[in-house]
């Protein structure tokens, strides 16, 4: 049987190479289908990996607590309403929940930042020192905002790369210089190391940090001292996150005196949730592409079936001869199945090559990250094999069921 299969494969190659144009056109559907799958999956995987990397870079062990309730649709309401989170909440969380290694608070607004005769509109963040630790910021020069800065409402600032680029000359050292926000002057004590784009596509380096106390008293203003825009908490290990989230909810509900029938007046998010949402979007996209590719493969399969039916008709006499010299039905069946699978496999391999090239081109031209997974190549390979098998079955069976005498007499 081994020799039979081998020789049949060789015969299939010869038959197909006799009609190269025909074979090529027949394979086109498979090539496009498989190519699309490979390219799309690698784009999808690349995007997913980017999101995952982002999430990891922001810390998988971070809890973000925002004021306001969450509606069913996931939209936060009541933001403009009563301020529900305070510095006292943060301190109490730290005290009551041993799992939390750090809590921090922040508030932000976009404001004009002035240096010399230049200015830049960027987000000004009033933060507690813990925020910088939780978000894992590092410094290209200078150092962080300290607890002493917070306690004394010092007029010090940390600035991100984008702010530096827009306010300072190339080569100029920002640390030690004085900038002004809302006519309050701040001494720049550190420049943040660049983080690049966030998963959502925003520029994380367009940022400025000042002590929270300075921000609420002199820059951002406040409804009452101690009201915050967001609370942050971190655990030591990501595994502890679910337990910590539950504890945070309990403590906050108790502090806010919420009755059991009242909804939370705050919203708890973790980076894992945010990443999941984004991955979900990527998956929908991948699924849609998969549908398109499936249709392409279907069309390709029908093309193979069509060309094989033509081939069976053209070679009716040959089939008769083969039967006359002792070919059994299964021999004829296998012969045409192998021809179909050779076509689809060849198409599949070409599709894989074009898919990889397409993914590469996407990275080069559009700058999207792509990952070519071995799994998708394997799946594409098996899929094209299956397409050949499935769509070859009908013509091959038709050939195998021919009556030898009628086949021999066929003109």
């Amino acid at each position: 049987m081994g020799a039979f299969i081998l020789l049949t494969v060789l015969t299939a190659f010869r038959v197909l190479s006799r009609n190269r144009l025909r074979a090529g056109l027949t394979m086109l559907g498979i090539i496009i289908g498989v190519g699309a799958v490979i390219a799309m999956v690698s784009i999808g995987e690349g995007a997913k990996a980017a999101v995952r990397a982002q999430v990891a870079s922001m810390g998988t062990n971070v809890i973000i607590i925002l004021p306001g309730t969450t509606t069913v649709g996931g939209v936060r309401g009541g933001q403009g309403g009563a301020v529900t989170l305070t510095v006292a909440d943060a301190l109490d969380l730290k005290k009551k929940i041993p799992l939390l290694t750090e809590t921090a608070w922040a508030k932000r607004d976009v404001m004009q930042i002035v240096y010399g005769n230049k200015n830049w509109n960027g987000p000004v963040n009033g933060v507690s020192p813990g925020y910088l630790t939780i978000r894992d910021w590092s410094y290209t020069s200078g150092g962080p905002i300290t607890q002493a800065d917070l306690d004394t409402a010092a007029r010090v600032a940390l600035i991100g790369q984008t702010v530096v680029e827009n306010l300072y000359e190339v080569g100029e050292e920002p640390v030690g210089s004085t900038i002004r926000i809302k006519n309050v002057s701040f001494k720049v004590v550190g420049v943040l190391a660049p983080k690049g784009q966030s998963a959502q596509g925003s520029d994380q380096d367009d940022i400025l940090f000042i002590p929270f106390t300075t921000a609420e008293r002199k820059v951002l203003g406040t409804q009452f001292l101690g009201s915050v825009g967001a609370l942050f908490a971190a655990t030591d290990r990501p595994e502890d996150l679910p337990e910590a989230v539950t504890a945070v909810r309990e403590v906050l509900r108790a502090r806010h005196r919420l009755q059991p029938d009242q909804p939370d007046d705050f919203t708890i998010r973790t980076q894992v949730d945010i990443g999941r949402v984004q991955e979900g979007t990527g998956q929908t996209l991948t699924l849609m592409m998969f549908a398109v590719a499936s249709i392409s493969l279907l069309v390709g399969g029908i093309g193979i079936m069509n060309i094989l039916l033509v081939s069976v008709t053209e070679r009716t006499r040959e089939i008769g001869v083969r039967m006359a010299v002792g070919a059994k039905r299964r021999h004829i069946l296998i012969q045409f199945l192998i021809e179909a699978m050779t076509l689809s496999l060849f198409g599949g391999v070409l599709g894989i090559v074009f898919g990889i090239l397409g993914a590469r081109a996407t990275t080069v031209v559009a700058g999207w990250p792509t990952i070519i997974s071995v799994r998708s190549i394997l799946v594409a390979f098996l899929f094209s094999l299956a397409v050949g098998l499935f769509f070859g079955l009908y013509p091959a069976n038709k050939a195998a069921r021919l009556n030898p005498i009628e086949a021999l007499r066929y003109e």
Partner: protein
Amino acid sequence: MGALIVCTDLWKIYRLGDVEVQALRGVSLEIERGEFVAVIGASGSGKSTLMNILGCLDTPTRGRYWLDGQDVGSMGSDALAEIRNREIGFIFQNFNLIPRTSASENVQLPLFYRGASLREQRTLAAAALARVGLAGREHHYPAQLSGGQQQRVAIARALVSFPAILLADEPTGNLDTESSRDIMVTLARLNREDGLTVMVVTHEADIAAYAAREIVVKDGQIVSDRRKAPVHARGG
């Protein structure tokens, strides 16, 4: 051991709508090993139908058929394919070589379906081609060979698997006189020298003359069956 071919009361009836065509009407026949038989008769008399049944390509509507002691009438399509592969060598009027496939590969075909190794296939095919005088033409394609040569490739294919019988249906029908004589001499030699059983269907008397036994078919029945001296024996 009985005769190679024994058949009794073979009928073949085709139904074309309301019309019934009786292609064979009670044919009984015995053929011994080593015989050279000619079946002659007018066109439409049922020669090919008989040949196809004897070659296990077709089954009779009625009647029994034993080939080499095996009851062929009761076999399924795979078993019949097996019989065709081992016991029968076919030669057709229009050669029926597979186009764009070398002489050697055409000859290898029965061995291929028998599962022989590629080396065995090649060796046996070369030997068979040599036996029909085509040594050195292994790699020629059918289109590069004359009609007579193509028919000799077909003979090589028929005998490569050492079958019990060669069945030739009008083997010279598409050939000129010279090539026809060639083919018949080749068949006669294979019969005489290798003891191969040969059955040739023809409607030409001078082709039938090569055989040692002549069966005349008319309207689906055998009307005459006689042994005679073959032409080459007569000629010396």
